[in-house]
């Protein structure tokens, strides 16, 4: 980490400010699709906290309704009742069922949503330029620094379609971080990747986290991924979605892949595998279609 330009953030393993932001409180949230009689209950009285400055991973079978929860935080979908707070500020509640999407909560999508018609750097600078926060030149400078810092030097003027999917995910995370979000919402971002790439991406994500201490809300159906990444793992029931088990993973950060072979990791796996498997069986029996 050489001398940084004024616009760049100062990175260190310990955040400069101890003030952590991006805590989300989900309080008694219900989501029903369709009318209340003929509707489908997707989220059922769901209550849990996403602590600020930590990684919270939500695990559940496909189609259980965890994406619904993420969409409610992001402001893509309304909720039916309950409250969601971001840093004690109400995002959505009974009077305002749908939150306003904004750059303080940025989603990294399942299949990636880099705009294929914009070059990588145009993608990365999209947020600040659209919001009018930075001039084009400033945004480009900051983007170049951040991309270089994430090991993405030299691909600024390529299109996302020319890159491997792993690189695209990394560019997408840089695009999110450019906006200095309070919380990153990751919706099964590594689902389509092969397991080798996935392991590289996990380490990359952890490194981003150590540098920025941005709160991360991560959705997956991969238990190992959840325990490896999370400070906190929330295991969901199959539809309707409700926390079945909340675990605080006391494996110290920073973690790397040697963690996977430790005894403590195995203990967590053993403790949770049965619960997750049980829900997976229920989901399978209910015939939920993958989507």
């Amino acid at each position, binding site marked *: 980490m050489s001398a940084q330009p004024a616009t760049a953030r100062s990175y260190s393993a310990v955040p400069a400010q101890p003030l952590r932001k991006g805590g989300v409180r989900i309080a008694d949230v219900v989501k029903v699709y369709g009318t209340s009689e003929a509707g489908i209950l997707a989220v059922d009285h769901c209550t849990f906290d996403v602590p600020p400055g930590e990684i919270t991973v939500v695990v559940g079978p496909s189609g259980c309704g965890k994406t619904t929860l993420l969409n409610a935080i992001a402001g893509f979908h309304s909720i039916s009742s309950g409250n969601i707070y971001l840093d004690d500020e109400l995002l959505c509640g009974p009077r305002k069922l749908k939150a306003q999407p904004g750059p303080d909560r940025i989603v990294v999508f399942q*299949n990636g949503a880099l705009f294929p*018609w914009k070059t990588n750097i145009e993608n990365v600078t*999209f947020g600040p330029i659209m919001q009018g926060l930075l001039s084009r030149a400033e945004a480009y400078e900051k983007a170049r620094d951040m991309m270089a810092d994430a090991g993405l030097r030299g691909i600024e003027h390529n*299109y996302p379609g020319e890159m491997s999917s792993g690189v695209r995910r990394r560019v997408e995370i840089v695009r999110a971080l450019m906006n200095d979000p309070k919380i990153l919402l990751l919706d099964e971002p590594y689902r389509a990747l092969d397991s080798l790439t996935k392991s590289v991406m996990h380490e990359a994500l952890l490194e981003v986290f150590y540098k920025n201490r941005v709160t991360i809300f991560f959705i997956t159906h991969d238990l190992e991924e959840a325990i490896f990444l999370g400070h906190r793992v929330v295991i969901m029931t199959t539809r309707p979605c409700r926390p079945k088990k909340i675990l605080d993973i006391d494996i110290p950060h920073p973690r790397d892949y040697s963690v996977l072979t430790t005894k403590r990791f195995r203990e967590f796996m053993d403790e949770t595998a049965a619960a997750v498997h049980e829900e997976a069986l229920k989901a399978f029996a209910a015939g939920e279609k993958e989507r």
Partner: protein
Amino acid sequence: MTEASPLRALNRDVSLGLADDAVRGISPLALAIHRFLLWLRSPRPYLMIVGFTLFIGFWYLAVEVWKLPRFSEMPGPTEVVREWFSRNPTYGLSVFTPEYYLHIWVSTRRVAIAFFLATAIGVPLGLFLGWSERFKQYVFPVFELLRPVPPLAWVPLAIVMFKGSETPIIFLTFLASFYATALNTMLGVESIDVSYTRAASCLGATRWQVFRHVIVPGAMPFIFTGLQISVGVAWFSLVAGEMVSGQYGLGYVINTSYTMVRYPTIVIGMITLGIVGYVTSAAVRFVGDHLMQWRTRELALGGDR
């Protein structure tokens, strides 16, 4: 991943992640030459020659040598070629006569006017139809009500509605293009993955910015598919319009050559129409590829999705 270190993972040389490093930095000309040489080495050009030889050979033999029944009425290939490239054509139309170019010009001009009008109206309409659910609910039913009537069935009404012989033909041509363009643009907007608009609103884009930076470029591939179809149907309707009413133009040439028994000129008109039609649609494709570099490059790499 035995020697895992959290810091190493990110700073790894990223060119490993490029789908194909070799393709970058090659000039388009070199690529074109390379592709041409590959093509020459494949059996395709020789099969193509066989195909054309069979086609023209059969035409020649059936008409000019064997003089098969029915075929003997038709102009043969040598007759057509001789007429087409004659300095002193028997029937008055060849590459050396100015009228030939006048007809091409008149037809092309009509298609161009109709095409640009259809694009100027059809693309924005399609964008709004796809973008706003409400707008679509109000406008699309009328669009769907009018669409089943083929543009060519408008011929008499167009003549009644518009004065002169030029406007009705342009109107017909416009109508055919317009449907194709508007419909494909709308489908293009509807095909855009909702993740893109969501990502943009997440990143703080306003509704208008989403339209400008996501909807318009995202629909671009479909828009250009629509424009290609649009040029095709424009020629299609133009010919009908020119054959029914109108003066000058290639459809007119074909029709009058029939009544005046200038049979070789009919074929000259048809071939010319084919060439001009092909050139215009190639031009649209070229503009599309040029505007959608991202797509061209993605496809060139074989699309790692």
